């Protein structure tokens, strides 16, 4: 296999339990002239890696780390522990079912970087999808043994943008691009995902009222003053939304019934 693959091999992290699979981490350049490089962390499946699919997990934000959330808190093999400089094995790690990759995307997120600082002011959905696609093409050159594997993408939150947009790049690339860039892309899965501004915001308000988080008055004010089908909100709408968001300074908006981190 390519030399760079061997160079990316991770031996053992500080405080890491012994595990029966290989892991790799490092940078893949996505733009030579600007010096943009994305950082990945890849775990082979716990067993039978050659027969299992390859899955890329993305988190949202925009600007949040797939390694910080996805790997270390949610579905990766190594979870961080309270007050201990050690990692613990996650018995429900998703690399039980697949070869699993976490990608810090776009540049500016986590360890991913650019040598052209103005790049950080030009970020958005399009460049994120473009760079992630180039990352994948170059990653498969480094790990050619995975090129024929079934490939899936999964993610949460703002990945409701990232995942379909990257999927479309792959889908179009498979149809129009050169044969050597073909990716065996089969599907994607997104959770608690931002997909449509109008329904996402409407649903957020309905949910808060239905779960006794906001008062009848705040709910009525928002319904009276906000039209989520248009982009720019009125002052009256913003004022009503300020009252709505104030409630979520008291409880965890992302998990209504868990204690907040004090």
């Amino acid at each position: 296999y390519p030399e760079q693959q061997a160079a990316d091999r991770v031996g053992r992290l500080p405080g890491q339990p012994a595990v029966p699979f290989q892991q790799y981490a490092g940078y893949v350049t996505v733009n030579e002239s600007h010096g943009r490089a994305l950082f990945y962390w890849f775990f082979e499946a716990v067993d039978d890696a050659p027969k299992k699919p390859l899955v890329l997990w993305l988190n949202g934000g925009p600007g949040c780390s797939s390694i910080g959330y996805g790997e270390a808190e949610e579905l990766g093999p190594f979870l961080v522990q309270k007050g201990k400089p050690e990692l613990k094995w996650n018995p429900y790690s998703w690399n039980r079912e697949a070869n699993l990759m976490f990608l810090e995307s776009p540049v500016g997120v986590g360890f991913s970087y650019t040598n052209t600082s103005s790049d950080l002011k030009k970020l958005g959905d399009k460049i994120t999808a473009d760079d992630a696609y180039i990352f994948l093409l170059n990653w498969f050159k480094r790990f050619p043994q995975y090129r024929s594997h079934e490939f899936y993408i999964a993610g949460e939150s703002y990945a409701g943008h990232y995942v379909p947009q990257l999927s479309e790049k792959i889908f179009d690339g498979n149809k129009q691009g050169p044969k050597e860039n073909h990716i065996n892309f089969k599907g994607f899965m997104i959770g608690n995902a931002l997909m449509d501004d109008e329904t996402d915001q409407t649903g957020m308000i309905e949910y808060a009222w239905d779960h006794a988080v906001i008062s009848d008055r705040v709910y009525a004010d928002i319904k009276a003053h906000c039209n989520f089908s248009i982009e720019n909100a009125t002052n009256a709408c913003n004022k009503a939304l300020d009252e709505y968001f104030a409630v979520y300074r008291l409880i965890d908006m992302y998990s209504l019934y868990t204690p907040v981190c004090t």
Partner: protein
Amino acid sequence: CSSDYSEVYFNRPDVQAALHANVTKMGYNWTHCSDAIGNWNDAPASTLPIIRKLIAGGIRVWVFSGDTDGRIPVTATRLTLNKLGLKSVQEWTPWYDHLQVGGWTITYEGLTFVTIRGAGHEVPMHTPRQALSLFRNFLGDKKMPPT
């Protein structure tokens, strides 16, 4: 408070060296969500047109929702999927995990929607066993366990 602990861990020089990370010695710390990114310049109001295109192209699409998330709640996702306008092929039905209802699921033409009972925004963190079941069934293109 998991985020506090991982920020400490991933900023350790020995951890970064083991991961082959931060080779350029960035001028800022590793953080969960970037402080380095400036403006976000483009984001479409909806990704539904892309999702429609990919479903039509035969790409498998699953959507899930932890039902205690208030940020992008299950209510929002249901409204979004209704807007997508797909025909349902299997009606709203419970799925099971260890003899308990794990959530509910509905199958549309080209899209499967699964809720996870008791999970917040980060489903695999709140309900790891149920999330792994979801992932396994997604990869296998199987229905969530009906009993």
